[in-house]
């Protein structure tokens, strides 16, 4: 329905060029991501971001002040993360591969381990130094019309676009 409406509005050729996989999966997924955030906010008043989990979880094993400041929130952050993993697993079971088949549901990336690991290190440093990630700044911060978050999102988006295109132009494989 969403895709048909978009095709009417923009013309089918344009839609295919910009959105080769259609729009509905992204729009519905995005609304659900927002809904998950809202559910938590509704009950608790918390604007939940995903990346603080990295530091709050480290407070279980390290007493350093950077991590210790998150002790009060570390338990619910573990629950939030387990929920994210579980929710994605439910999606995979229903829609990915053979419906309701555990063996047929797993999907694995072609992106190479070194890109994942090195990128992960930079993501770990950057999200914590930069006060937020795609969910904290991108969903909650932009939703709050926070100027800090808008600048944060613009920064990481532009740098990521430059990086991804540079890596691709250099002929580095996935």
């Amino acid at each position, binding site marked *: 329905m969403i895709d048909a409406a978009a095709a009417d509005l923009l013309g089918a050729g344009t839609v295919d060029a910009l959105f080769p996989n259609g729009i509905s999966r992204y729009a519905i997924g995005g609304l659900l991501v927002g809904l998950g955030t809202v559910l938590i906010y509704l009950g608790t008043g918390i604007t939940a971001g995903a990346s603080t989990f990295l530091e709050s979880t480290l407070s279980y094993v390290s007493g350093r002040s950077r991590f210790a400041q998150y002790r009060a929130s570390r338990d619910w952050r573990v*629950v939030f993360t387990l929920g994210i993993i579980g*929710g994605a697993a439910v999606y*995979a079971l229903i829609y990915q591969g053979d419906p309701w088949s555990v063996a047929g549901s797993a999907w694995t990336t072609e992106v190479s381990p070194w890109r994942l690991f090195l990128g992960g290190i930079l*993501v770990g440093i*950057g999200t914590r130094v930069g006060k937020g990630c795609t969910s904290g700044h991108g969903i909650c911060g932009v939703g709050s019309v926070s100027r800090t978050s808008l600048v944060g999102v613009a920064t990481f988006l532009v740098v990521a676009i430059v990086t991804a295109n540079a890596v691709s132009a250099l002929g580095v494989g996935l």
Partner: protein
Amino acid sequence: MPLILVGGLVFGFGLGFSHMARPEVVLDFLTFDDFGLLFVMFGGSIVAGIAFWTLPKLRGSAPLTGRPYGRRLKSFDRDVLVGGSIFGVGWGLSGICPGAAYASLGVGNWPILYAIGGMFVGAYAQGVWRSRDAGDAPAAAPGDD
């Protein structure tokens, strides 16, 4: 806690459904092959924005915690630009961000453990570095250069 779990489940289901849990899709977005991810970010932030804007007008605080309803506002300084740039390089290289990485584990993508492991290493390194700045860990060697 049960509500946090339900919220996380919906959040994770949405990330799976949107395919943002797949690094390839993020990289396709960043290299302008598929702009669909715009709908995930804007769709999510608009839904959140409506709630952040409406609820504080309806009641003062959240029923379960008594926490006042507010917006997510953080102070702006150079760190936002420095951290955002480092995050951007990492995101552009790997195609993965924290929330999507947890969701990616949920869709059975076990190689994402490399990325999650990297995120903990990075978060730990900056935490050690910045705790040292605070002066409470004199023995900490700045080993993150």
